[in-house]
C-alpha cells in the first residue's frame, strides 16, 4: 500500500465517521477501496499521517511482512545497540544465507552495558539481516528474517 492510498483511506474513514456512514467504496482503474463498519463505535485504521521525518513508527511494522506467512521475523526484545559480532575484530555471528539452528546466537543488542544475546527460535536459513551493525534498535524492531526449515 503506498502513501497515497493510505491517505485516501484515512480521508474516507474520516468521511465515514463524520457523515455517519456505514460503507464507502471508491474504484479508480484497478484500485478499489472499500470501507465498511457495523456501527459508529467500531471504526479504526487511524494511520499515522503527518510525519515527514523519514522513518516513522510504522516504517518497520510493514517491512518484514512481504509474504509473511512462511518467514519468521526475529525482533528486538529490548532497546539498545545492535551488534553482529561479539567484538569488532571477530566475524559476524551470522550472514545472509547461513543455516542456523534453534538456540544459536544471531546478534547482540547492548543496552546499558548489558549484552543481550538474541538467539534463533527455530532451525532455518537467514534470509535477511534487517539492521546495520552498531545501529540503535527499538523494542519490537525486526532484526532478521528467517526461513524456517520444514
Amino acid at each position, binding site marked *: 500500500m503506498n502513501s497515497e492510498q493510505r491517505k485516501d483511506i484515512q480521508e474516507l474513514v474520516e468521511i465515514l465517521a463524520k457523515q455517519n456512514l456505514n460503507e464507502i467504496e471508491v474504484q479508480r482503474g484497478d484500485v478499489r477501496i472499500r470501507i465498511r463498519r457495523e456501527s459508529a*463505535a467500531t471504526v479504526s485504521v487511524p494511520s499515522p499521517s503527518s510525519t515527514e521525518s523519514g522513518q*516513522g*513508527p*510504522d516504517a518497520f511494522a510493514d517491512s518484514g511482512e512481504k509474504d509473511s506467512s512462511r518467514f519468521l521475523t526475529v525482533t528486538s526484545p529490548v*532497546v539498545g545497540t545492535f551488534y553482529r559480532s561479539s567484538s569488532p575484530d571477530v566475524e559476524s555471528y551470522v550472514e545472509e544465507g547461513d543455516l542456523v539452528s534453534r538456540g544459536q546466537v544471531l546478534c547482540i543488542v547492548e543496552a546499558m552495558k548489558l549484552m543481550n544475546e538474541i538467539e534463533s527460535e527455530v532451525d532455518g536459513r537467514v534470509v535477511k539481516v534487517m539492521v546495520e551493525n552498531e545501529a540503535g534498535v527499538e*523494542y519490537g*524492531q525486526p532484526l532478521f528474517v528467517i526461513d524456517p526449515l520444514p
Partner: protein
Amino acid sequence: MFKKILIANRGEIALRIIRACRELGIKTVAVFSEVDARSLFVRHADEYVCIGPADSALSYLNIPNVLSAAEITGADAIHPGYGFLAENAHFAEVCESIGITFIGPTSEHLALLGDKSKARETMLRHGIPVMPGSEGELRNLDHAVQVAGELGYPVMVKASAGGGGRGLRVVSREAELGKAILSAQVEARTGFDHDGVYLEKYFPEPRHVEIQVLADEHGHAVHLGERDCSIQRRYQKLVEESPSPVVDDSLRREMGNVALKVVKAVQYRNAGTVEFLLDQNRKFYVMEVNTRIQVEHPVTEMVTGIDLIKEQIRVAAGMPLRFRQKDIQLHGHSIECRINAECPETFVPSPGVVSRFHVPGGAGIRVDTALEAMDQVHPHYDSMIAKVIAHGQDRADALARAQRALDEFTVEGIKTTIPLQRLILRDPDFQKGGVSTNFLDRLLAGRML
C-alpha cells in the same frame, strides 16, 4: 543548554514538554509503547523510540529501555513529566550516574520527600507546620489517649498502610477511641496485612491549597502563588484554580513563605509543589511536597505568564532563575477542568475510538491534549484525555469562559466527564467559592446529571 531531551512519558504531558522544547530550539525524543505508535506526541517529536508493549510496567516504567533509548539517540536530558518515573529516586540516580540530566530535583530529594515520615521529621525540625498528629504509629491505648488529648477532638484514626478511605475512623470523644482503633486495625489487617495505626487531627471542612515553587542551583527560589484543588473525588483532583477564592494577599504571603522555608530546609531545586490543608480558620498545615511538575500546572502559568516547563528545563541546565519574588505577579484568574474518558455517573473508564473530537478555542481558552479525531483511548493508561484551561479578568469571567468552552467541547465515541464538569461549574456553592474537599461527594450524592 541541552541539545536533545528525551520525554519519558506519553499523552498530553509528553506533547506539552515537546512543545516547550520546540519553542526553546531543543530536539526531542519521544518514547512510546506499541499502542501509542500513532499518537500526536510521537508524531510531533523529532525522533521516537518504541520501548515496549502496552503494559506500562514493560514500557513507560521500563528503566533499562528508557535509558537505552536515551543512549542510542544521544539525548543529554530526560524529562519525566508526572506519574510513571517522575518521582522514582532510583531512576533519577541512574540518570545521574550515567551523565544524563534528570529534569527535576536530585535523587536525594526524591528519596527524602517521597518518604512521608522522614519528610515530616525534617519539616518538624525546621519549624514548618505539618499536619498535627502522632509521631509514628500508636504504641497502645494510653499513648492514643494522650496524643488525642493534645490534638483535641475530633481526631482521625488512620491505618499506616491504608488508602482511599479504608482503615479510617473519625473519633469525637475519648470514650470512643479504643473501639475505633480496634476496628480500624481489623480492617487494616484484612485489607493491607499490616495493622499499625496513627492519629491525626480531624478537620471537618478542609481545603486543598498548594503553593508552586521554583528553585535553581544558585540558591534562588520563588513561589508562584497558590492553586486551589478542593474539587476532588477520592483524592483525585477534578477542577483546579488560581488564585484560590479564599486566599488573600496576606495569607498568600504567609503560605508562600512557608513553602520557601521547605525549599530552604531541604535545599530543593527545580519545580515543586508544597501541598497544604487549609482549615476554616485560615490555619494551614503542610500535607506533602510533590517533587515533579503537576497536572494542574497550567493555571499557574496562566496567571503568572511563566512557562513552568521551560523554567524546569532552564534550571536543570544549571541556569539561574531569571526573576525574583517581586517580579511574580498574578493577573486575572484561571480554572482548569480535567476531562477524563470515564462515565460521568459511575466513573468507570470508557476506552475506545474517539469518532469525533472538536476542542474549544477562542479568547481565554487553552486546551492541552494529545488526542485527535479517530484516535483510540487505551485502557492501559490514565483516563485523563484533555485539560480545558480558562483565563479571565476575574473568577466570574474565568468561570464563564470555562463553561462556554465545556459547552463547545465535542467528544463522540467514548464517554467523558464533561457533563460532570458542567454540573460542578454551574453549582451555586462552587460559584460562590467557599467549598471544601467534601463538596464533590455531596454534589454526587444529590445530583441528577
